[in-house]
Every structure is written in C-alpha cells, then in structure tokens.
C-alpha cells in the first residue's frame, strides 16, 4: 500500500498510530510488527509468507552466526554467513532475476524467451537488503546478534521503510525497538517531513509523470520534446523517490525512530561521486559498507579499485531492475565515476562549479534515459530523437503544448531541486516572528489540502456504462 493513498492516509495510518500510542512502550515493537504485517498484506497478501520467511530465517541465521562468533569458530561462522546471505540473495534472485537470466539464456541459444512474468513481492529488494545488513553486521562485528525475535523482526518489517526504503542498516537500529518512545517533538517534526514528502510525491512527481507519459505516447518527438521528456522523467523520478523517502523518514520519526536523510539535493551535485553522496544515500552506503569495503575499498591497487567499482556498479544497476538497460545504466555511472576519479582528477579543479554541476546533471539525466526505456533499442532511439532523429525539427506544436501546460509544475520542481526554498521557509518560521510562522503554516496546510484533492481526484473515474 502506497503512502499517498486514501486507504493509508485516512484509515491505516490513524488507526495504526492510535494503537501504537496507547500500548505500553515495551509492547510497541510487537504492535509495530503486527501493523507492519497488515500494511504488507494490504498491498500484497499473497507474498506475506515471503516476508515472514525472511523474518524468521534471518533471526535463526543471526542466532547461529552470533553463537559461532562467540565461540570463535571463524571458519564455521564464515560458512554460516555465506549460507545466510546466499539464501537471502536466492530469494531476491528467484523472484526478481529468474525471468531476466532465463530470457537472456534463451536468446543466447536463439530461442524466444518465455513471456510469463513472475509477480514480484512488494519491497523484496528493500527488505532483503535490510536482512542481509543484519547478517553482515553480525559477521563484520559491527553489531551483536539479538536473542529477541521481536527486535530482528521489527527491524526487517517496520512499515515506514518496508516497501521503498530507506535501506536502514541494523547497526544503526539495534536496541531501538525495546521501548520506542513517541515524543511530541518527533511527532511534530515527523509530520512536517511527511507532508513535505507527500507534496513532492503527489503534486510534483505525479504531475511530471503524467507529462512524461504524454510525451512517451507520441508517435515521434521533435528534438526539444525529447529533451523535455528526459527532464520530466528525471525530475519525476527524483521527487517520487525523495518524496517517498521523506514520508518514510517522517513516519519512522513519528514512531520514535529517527532515520538519516536519503536524498540531499542530488541535482546540484558537481560530480558523479558527489551525486552518489546525495542520491539514494542509504543504497550507496549499503553497497559501500557491504560490497565495496569488504572487497578492499580504496586501500588497494588502482586496477583492483577499478574492478571493485565496476562490480559495485554492475550490482547497483541490477538491483534497480532485471534488464540490460539497468545493467548499462549501472556501468554508465560506474564508468563515469572511474573516469572522474582516476583520469579527470586534476581537470575537475579547473572547471567552474556551475559548469561542473551542469555537466553532471546532463550525464545523470542521459543515464535516466536508459533507466526508463524498456529496451536498449528504445533508449538509443530516444537519444537519437533528442538530436532530431524523428525528422520533426527542433520544436513543434507538441513541444509548446507540453512546455506550456507544465510550465508551473516545471518551475516549481526546478526550484525544489535546490535548498533555497526550504531555507526560505525555515527562515520564515525562525525569524519573522508570529507573522512568519503563520505564513509558513499556511503554506504547509494549503499544500496538504492540495495533496488530498489530488489523491482523491486521481481515484476519480467515471464508469462509462454503454460507453459508445
């Protein structure tokens, strides 16, 4: 169940919060597990057993691994860790990648790939990575195992981050579930973050998404339309994901679990490395802590570092989706990072910052073309159309239509890409006394009401009985 739905906002969330609030602190973790399971079942009841299996299996595996560690049986601990990680990866691979690899193999042998698509358990990429974090934190001795099933289960399934992240790591969450406190200041700040996230998702991302869908449906695009489409998608993806993360972080904070931010104005990065410090921070951290550093990280030869980076980025690409376009997208970012770190290190300093930002954003946006295209062929076709490949010139009527009808959304989105708006609102509420407070509250409330109208409105569909 998505956060930006009527069911969540006006039924699940109020009921869950009241329930969570009235039980004693010691019982809250159990309640959190129960409401999280209802949350999961509401969206995808048939795969609830997958989630339950992950919770139970990783608890048991963590127990065994921890006891082996305690006994000092290094070798056996390693095997136990490998087995546990393998089971988690198998679960992910079975649902997410079977079709991809079988299809690629079939094509390699000249057969048509089977068209049956396995439905993916919601959030499996996220909760599996949380679970692996638990196992590896014990193995790498960043955290102790837990004897208490509730602690592990609540960590894996807590609903704010269950289906779309952020991918919190166990070492950051350990021990927090014993008696979670709901404080007024957490509630207030969390609600505010949630409303901001809702605004990003509903008013910006969904509107940009509709514009992008309109452009994708065109038979052919003038060059400027293709550029516009790429920009719409890039902004949509950011606000969709960042909005979702904001809502998740806000909810977690309300429940008493502050989580680090997941996005930090990525579209003002001045380099690819900088971009990945600002985009989906929790995923980058996960790959750094559990893949890159264990592989040797920066403390090895240049050749080995390049290999490590390629491995990490190949996996990052595959994590986002099982298709060659995602593999290419991962390699694209990995390659750019390697170039930036090893070849262009000194050159970077000579370029003014504004140009660095512009180039970075352009490279990232071109990467998204591969991200949104269903196949490599259509991605290349899109890029060709960005340079007039459709023979419709640079600009036509459709370009004007999409630009004009989405101009306000576009401007709002671009402003929200930078920190200035947020700063202004914050300053308003800090400095200008009562008047400033009223203004900033009014902004939030109007945004919230607009969000509700859009959420209700998007569920509006007339049933065209005897349509034609």
């Amino acid at each position, binding site marked *: 169940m998505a956060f930006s739905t009527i069911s969540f906002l006006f039924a699940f969330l109020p009921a869950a919060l009241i329930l969570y609030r009235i039980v004693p602190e010691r019982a809250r973790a159990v309640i959190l597990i129960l409401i999280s399971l209802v949350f999961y*079942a509401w969206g995808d009841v048939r795969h609830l057993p997958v989630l339950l299996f992950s919770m139970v299996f990783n608890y048991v595996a963590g127990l065994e691994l921890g006891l082996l560690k305690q006994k000092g049986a290094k070798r056996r601990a390693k095997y136990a860790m490998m087995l546990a990680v393998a089971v988690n990866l198998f679960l992910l691979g079975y649902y997410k990648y079977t079709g991809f690899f079988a299809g690629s193999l079939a094509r390699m042998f000249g057969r048509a790939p089977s068209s049956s698509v396995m439905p993916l358990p919601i959030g499996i990429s996220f909760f599996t990575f949380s679970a692996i974090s638990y196992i590896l934190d014990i193995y790498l001795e960043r955290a102790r195992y837990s004897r208490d099933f509730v602690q592990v289960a609540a960590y894996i399934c807590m609903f704010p981050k269950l289906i779309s992240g952020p991918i919190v790591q166990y070492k950051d969450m350990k021990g927090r579930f014993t008696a979670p406190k709901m404080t007024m200041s957490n509630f207030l700040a969390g609600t505010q973050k949630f409303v901001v996230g809702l605004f990003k998702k509903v008013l910006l991302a969904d509107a940009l998404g509709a514009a992008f869908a309109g452009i994708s449906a065109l038979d052919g695009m003038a060059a400027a339309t293709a550029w516009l489409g790429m920009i719409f998608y890039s902004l949509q993806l950011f606000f969709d994901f960042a909005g979702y993360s904001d809502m998740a972080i806000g909810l977690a904070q309300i429940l008493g679990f502050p989580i680090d931010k997941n996005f930090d104005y990525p579209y003002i990065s001045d380099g690819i490395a900088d971009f990945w410090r600002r985009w989906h921070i929790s995923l980058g951290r996960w790959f750094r802590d559990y893949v890159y550093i264990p592989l040797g990280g920066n403390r090895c030869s240049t050749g080995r570092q390049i290999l490590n980076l390629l491995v990490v980025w190949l996996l990052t690409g595959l994590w986002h989706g099982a298709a060659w376009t995602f593999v290419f997208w991962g390699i694209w970012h990995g390659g750019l990072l390697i170039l930036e770190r090893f070849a262009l290190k000194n050159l970077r300093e000579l370029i003014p910052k504004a140009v660095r930002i512009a180039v970075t954003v352009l490279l990232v946006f071109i990467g998204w073309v591969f991200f949104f295209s269903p196949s490599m062929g259509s991605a290349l076709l899109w890029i060709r159309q960005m340079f007039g490949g459709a023979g419709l010139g640079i600009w036509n009527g459709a370009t004007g239509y999409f630009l004009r009808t989405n101009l306000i959304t576009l401007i709002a989105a671009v402003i929200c890409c930078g920190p200035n708006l947020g700063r202004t609102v914050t300053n308003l509420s800090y400095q200008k006394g009562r008047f400033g407070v009223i203004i900033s509250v009014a902004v939030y409330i109007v945004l919230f*009401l607009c969000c*509700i109208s859009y959420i209700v409105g998007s569920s509006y569909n007339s049933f065209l009985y005897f349509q034609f």
Partner: protein
Amino acid sequence: MAYSFTEKKRPSARLMQHRITAICAAVIAGTIAVGSLVLPDRAFSDEENRTLAQAPKLSSASLQSGTFFSDLSSYLQDQIMGRDIWMRLKVAETQMAGMHESGDVYLGKNGYLLEKPAIPDQKKIDRSIEQIRAFKEQYPDLNMVMTLVPCAAAVFPELLPDGAPVHDQLTDIGYVRNKLVDLIPFIEMQTAFRNDSMNQIYYRTDHHWTSRGALDAFQAIRWELGIDTAEYFVPMTVSADFEGTLASRSGCHNQKDTVEVYRPENENYQYYTYYPDSQERIPSIFVTEKLEEKDKYQVFFGGNHPVLTVRTTLDNGKSLLIFKDSYANSFVQFLLPYYERIVLVDPRYYYEDIKTLITSEAITDVLFLYSMNTFAADGSLADVLSQATAETEEASMAAAETEDSSADPAETASSSAAETGAETSSVSEAGTGAETSSASPAENGTDSADAESGAAEESADQQEVSAEEAG
C-alpha cells in the same frame, strides 16, 4: 541580554510552527477519517455516473486472495468524505496550474471537452474489414453503405488546446475507406461537419454527436441509401442541462449541453419500437424518462440494446439493418420516414444469428454506422459477421435437421415468445412475399423456426448446441 533573548526565542518560534502545522494536518486527516466513517455510504455517484463501492465482506477466501484488501481500498476511496468537492478542487487546481487535461480528457476551447482519439488496434480493424467484405460478397444483392464517425478532436482540431497532440483519426478512417470502397460505398463525414460548423456538431460535455451532427451525416449519406426526397426535419429542445460522459470523466462541471430531437414536418406515418429484451412495443423512439436521469443521451431508445426493431406503417418494401454503436441511436430519427422496418443490431451485445434476422426481417439495405473510437477497439462486429458468413450451407442444413429436436423447447417457451414468432413470420409473409419466394422451402422452414427461437433465448441456445452436435 538581547542576544540571549533571540536565542531563546528562535527555537520556540520553530516549535510553534511545527506544532501548528502538525496539529492542523492531524485535525484535517482525523476529520476526514472520522467523517468518512460516520457519514452514511453513498450508493451512486451522479458526478461520476457509476455505482460506488460498498463495504467488502470479510471471508478467509477474500482475505487470502487479496481481493478483500483491494475491495477495501476501493470502498474507502469511493466513500471518502467530500469526494466530489475534492475532485472539483483538483480540477480547479489543474486549470490554475495551466494544464489542459483531466482524466485523459482535453479541456478544449469554447467550453468543449474532447476525448482523445483511440489508437486503433490494427488486427481488429483488419479483421473487421475482412469480415465486412466477406459479408458483402455473401449478400451481393443487399444495398450496403458504411460510415465511420470521427471524434470531435479529429474534425475540429482548433477546439483543442494549442498544440495538444492527438492521434490522426481521419487517416485511420481513410485507411478503412480505401480497403472497402471498391465494394461498399463509404461516406466520410468531416467535410459535411466542417461545412456546418456554425452549428454544434458534438456535445461539449459528452463524447457523442448532437442530433444536428447526425442530421448532417444523414444528409451526406442518404443518396447512397437511395433516399432522394428529403423531408424537412424540425428540431425540438428536450433538455438544456445535460452533463455527459466527458464531464464525468474529467470532473469538469462548468458547462451544460442542450439535447435536441428532430421530427419530420409531415409525419404521415405511424410507428412503434419493439424492445425484445423487455418485449415491449412503444410508439416512439424516444424514452423521455431518461431525460430525468444523468445520461440524457439515452433519450434515444433508452440506451443501447442488443437488437431493436422499428416498424412503420409505410409500405415500400424497404427494410434497413444497421450494425451500430450508440452513435446510431440519434441517427434513426431521420430514417423513420423512409423505411418499413429498421433493425438496429449492436454487435457488442448481440449473440443471435444474423442470417436468420436478414431473412426474417426481409432486409434490403444495410448500414454500418460506428464511431471510429468504437470501431478501432471493438472486435464484436467481426464476430457477428463471421457467424453469418461461415459455412452457410452446412449451418442451415444442420439447423434444418435439428428442427425437430428444437421444437420441444420452442413450444415450452413462454406464450408471448411464441406470439412474437408468429407475428414476425406473418409480417414477413405479407410484406415481402415476392422477396422470400426465391428461397428454397427448406430454408423457409428453418427461418420460421429460428424466428421463434430468436425470441426465446433458451431455445436458441439449445438449437445452437444441437446444431454443433450435428455438425
């Protein structure tokens, strides 16, 4: 001192802002949640023109399959407090943000709402064309005419928001025309519509054409139907507050349409419409009660029916079969002065035998009248026609053989059905005795049997089954 004062003040202002925002948000959300829970559920939404979801029943089966949760979500969505108000707010915001689309409907100029032309399903179109050709080849003596009505956005692109991209539907229609025109006269409508653009051809809030649009189409098509004496038709406004399907779909409710019906100046005939589904005969093609309802376009025949028959007191031997969608419903008002019989078949809901219908109703003319949006996406016309063209000989042989076996269910069918059957056969004998004389006696026998069973659905089904068994 001043310094420490601001230090103290800053966090409290921030906290106040947080506090008021959070409390307001919580109050709003809580009010909506409680309000939706407490207020009675609505059964029907006038604005959306559909029944609303009701509270789902909890059972272990629905819980396991997930339908309980999806039904619950629909229920919560549909019964949210102030649903229509939120929707109006959304449309207002959309327009304020400079957008010209809502619910996949273009908010066009002069208050027009325009649906997007359908992207055709090429396979379905080609199959329909193939079946229409086969149908004409099977019935070369029937005078057939075809037209496909473009949607408003295709004929009047100037009503669209500037630059709004639309699929070129006129090209699609031209494609169908080129594939058929050597066999069947095919009339394109855009010129006639554009020449009459000072009148309203399409409703502003509905996807249908107005009666005026249908009249223009009639004038463009009548020569091909062999109608050379034009009656003068007089319009009459029957409703001035029609909000059609596009208003429902977009949520845009700031326009109302006028519904007109036409009657010929000299109505020197009488007629009735026979509704086989209710077995009623009504001396009108208009169902005025529908003007009290939301969808006022249903004033024509009360909406779509699988098959309808209009009989007039004229005695000219002309009997028209129309394969149609709802666009034809408002077209028939102009045909009344010219035909003894008009049969409307809506292939989307029609599961009976066309061959039988053609003989029993002594069809002389056939009109294919569709909106392109339906034709582009619907395969049922091809289905119905393919039944008519497939293995005619064998089918009629099989039907003749099973005549005895089907006699029992036909007799046990309700008496009114039997009456209709008798009525049908007697009229066809009287009206077109010359026409049917060419048919062989065996075929004649099948006809009357089919006409009877046509009225009683169960027996028709039985006959179909036994025909299959025999074949």
